[in-house]
């Protein structure tokens, strides 16, 4: 089971006309096949005249993931979840990052301010803008008119896709009908209301989340809805955390995961939903301290769900600037886990210009670990320091780890200095090394024949370093005096 059952490239290649027509934007049909399997190109990009419907259908079947994808939202503001085929991240890669939605409710006093905040929320990290994926609106009023009015108002003023939350089909439908073109996700169909929610979903052509903490009941709801004609479904097996509950919650998620992605069962082929926000219905914080504890509990429940590739999580914390640390941790974790594991942590060693360096510009040194080199480069750019960056081959390890394990040593630095003819680019012999590599400073001076300045512990301090500590004349004087 460790191996993901994937279509082989040749299986697909045989079904193409192998004309290498280039109309898909690839040079060859084989390249198209490789990119198709990596989901970098869509099957529709192969023009009909080159691929008859019958063969197209065969390929579709071959590349169909064991977990169906589901889309909600419309136009540019789509939220695409599920569609996974790797049981473990290292088996292949996770394709669709867990969507993170923050929830609000129709009677919320400052609702419009909050949804605007959520809509515009963005964190810039390592070259990527991290944003939320959806807003979930609950009906606390349980009043169809009020809910419909509120949902419409929110829908008109935000871009994010919406999730409509109520167990009352009438309430759900009243709002869904108003914004059906924006294709909201309906939450949720239960054993009690599934017929009416299903009817609403069919009439308005909307996707539905099924909810039950009993797995037999959950697949029964899904199965019954499918039989009725609902095609887009997601499964929420319930989120309860705490002593005696945490294992059950994880068990349910994992049973669905084993069944769908490992075993390929038809009954569980839908994306999954987790609702860490539901913790707030059980844990009622009454003090500042308790509030903090529940926020932690919620955040870590979401972390657990991201870890096991749950398709969508709905959280409560994160509505205000003050609570930014919750979505920050989640979005950072998501950025990590949904990175393709086939991308090696190592980047090319080398000697790079940043900005427009002169003969007196500083030379900074760093490692060739992706997560070191990229942030360091970004920090130097952000600080507008015209300079050179020497990236030493540390076998893809960070500075601290490299110093500890010997992959970053004075020999390695000297080798890089010589190989890249580093000091030919400038009129000095000063090398700024990371604070984390301070222990190596003496040895580097000897081995690389240069003057070493120990820079800040973190590259975010480089601007301050340039203002306060960078003194080329002084450094060169000391170098020449030796």
């Amino acid at each position, binding site marked *: 089971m*460790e191996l993901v059952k994937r279509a082989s490239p040749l299986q697909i290649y045989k079904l193409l006309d192998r004309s290498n027509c280039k109309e898909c934007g690839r040079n060859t049909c084989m390249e198209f096949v490789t990119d198709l399997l990596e989901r970098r190109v869509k099957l529709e990009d192969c023009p009909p005249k080159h691929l008859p419907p019958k063969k197209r259908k065969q390929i579709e079947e071959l590349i169909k993931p064991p977990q169906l994808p589901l889309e909600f939202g419309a136009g540019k503001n789509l939220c695409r979840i599920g569609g996974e085929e790797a049981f*473990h*991240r*290292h088996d292949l890669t996770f394709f669709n990052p867990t969507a993170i939605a923050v929830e609000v409710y129709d*009677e919320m006093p400052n609702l419009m301010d909050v949804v605007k905040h959520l809509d515009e929320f963005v964190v810039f990290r390592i070259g990527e803008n991290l944003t939320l994926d959806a807003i979930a609106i*609950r009906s*606390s009023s*349980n009043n169809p008119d009020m809910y419909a009015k509120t949902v419409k108002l929110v829908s008109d003023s935000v871009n994010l896709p919406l999730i409509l*939350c*109520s*167990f009352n089909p009438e309430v759900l439908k009243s709002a869904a009908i108003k914004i059906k073109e924006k294709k909201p996700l309906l939450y949720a169909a239960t054993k009690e209301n*599934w017929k009416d929610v299903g009817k609403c979903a*069919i009439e308005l052509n909307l996707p539905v989340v099924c909810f039950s903490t009993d797995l*037999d009941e959950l*697949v*029964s709801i*899904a*199965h*019954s809805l499918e039989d009725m004609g609902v095609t887009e479904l997601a499964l929420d097996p319930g989120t*309860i*955390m705490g*002593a*005696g*509950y945490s*294992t*059950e919650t*994880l068990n349910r998620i994992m*049973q669905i995961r084993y*069944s769908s992605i490992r*075993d390929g*069962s038809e009954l569980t082929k839908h994306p999954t939903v987790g*609702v860490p*926000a*539901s913790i*707030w*219905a*059980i844990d009622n914080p009454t003090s500042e301290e308790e509030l903090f504890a529940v926020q*932690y509990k919620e*955040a*870590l429940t979401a*972390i*657990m769900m991201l*870890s096991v590739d749950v398709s969508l999580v709905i959280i409560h914390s994160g509505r205000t600037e003050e609570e*930014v*640390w919750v979505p*920050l*941790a989640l979005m*950072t*974790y998501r*950025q*990590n*886990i949904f990175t393709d*594991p086939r991308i090696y*942590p190592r980047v090319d060693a080398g000697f790079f210009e940043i900005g427009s360096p002169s003969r007196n510009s500083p030379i900074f040194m760093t490692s060739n670990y992706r*997560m070191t080199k990229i942030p360091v480069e970004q920090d130097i750019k952000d600080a507008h320091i015209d300079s050179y960056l020497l990236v030493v081959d540390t076998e893809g*390890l960070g500075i601290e*780890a490299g110093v500890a394990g*010997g992959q970053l040593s004075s020999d390695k630095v000297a080798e890089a200095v010589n190989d890249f003819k580093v000091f030919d680019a400038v009129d000095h012999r000063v090398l700024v090394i990371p604070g984390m590599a301070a222990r190596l400073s003496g040895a580097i001076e000897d081995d690389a024949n240069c003057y070493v300045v120990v820079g800040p512990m*973190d590259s*975010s301090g480089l601007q301050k370093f340039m203002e306060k500590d960078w003194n080329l004349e002084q450094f060169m004087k000391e170098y020449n005096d030796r």
Partner: protein
Amino acid sequence: MSFEKITEKLLKMLEETDEVTLKDLELMGEHLEFSVLPGIVKSVTQSTQQMISQVSMQQQLKPAEWIETKFPEIKNEYKGKIEEVTFYRNKNKSKVVIGGETVPPFLSFFGEKNPHRPVVSLDVFDYGRSFPKPIKAIYKDVYDDTVAWARRAEKFGADLLTFHCLATDPLLLNRPIKEDAAMYEKILDAVKIPVIIGGSGNKTMDPQLYDALGKIAANDNTRTMFSSADKETWEQVIPLSLKYDQNVLLWTQLDINDQIKLNKDALDAGLPRNHTVIDPTCATLGYGLEYSYSIYQRYRISGLLGDKTLNFPTSAGTTNAWGAREAWMSNKKAPQWGDIFKRGPLWEVTTALAMALCGLDLAMMFHPLAAQTFKNICMDFFAESKKVTPPIGEWVTMKI
């Protein structure tokens, strides 16, 4: 045109056509006979069926019917077992056991439960450095009093402590090992839990350090762990572990082949399997955590599937999380990330939880709030299941 000719022409046309639509056609006759090719009949039936199904969709002719369905059975394919490793003080007066897993972390639906929850070791450093503000707030007054530091960490609920002898690195303080040995002896007197012996990372000094502190542990009737041996030091460290009956942490850096080789070398040199803990390196949230996530998971799954080269309990230094700027950067410098006293510890406990879900047995942690939170989460996972379901559905109508 004769009828035969028309038919011939029609058939020829039809050969290249998928569908024929007859518009505004009137047919009159007493007796009308259609003879058509089987292929055509088929397509007529198909399109009729399609039409019918479309109509039925629109009119929802299909009645909604509850279909009682059984959740599919999940087969257990994990045949292997992770080794058990024991830490103890004074002949078992306090004891910590890790490992022994037969299924992936925290799962119980295979009918088997793992025997031990992941445990927490809190860090004690042999000298204070410039630690982030949330750490400083906890330990600043004991930076120079290692014994008081250890006592405090024990009070926070740690299962174990790790005494990091960084000052013995000649490139740092070059402190004589006997001074750290004296400190270690005092720490053992002051606390009841096992104290792991942490090296500075200096390849020459570390074996000497383990020799000196291992002897103290042995005299105390304590089995703890040398943290750590790597590809350069294992040849010196393994004999010392045998001499003093101590566990050894085999440390590699995110490289599966290095780990397999180091494990094999250590076992060949006589390290008992039940004295072996592995550390494939814990990267931090936001800065490569995914590499650790996948490597810890690969090791654990391989071990559970029966790979005898990787079925050892794992350790992770989640203290590394404090190297992430989201964790250490002050509120003044990074107001956009929220309060450091919240995001800092969260950064560490997230790192620990991520590893635990992949397969972690021993978390070496720094911040007590992160440690307590992590320990509580693990204890929750190991608590007896409750059968009553609280009304979580009320979430939908709550007014907060």
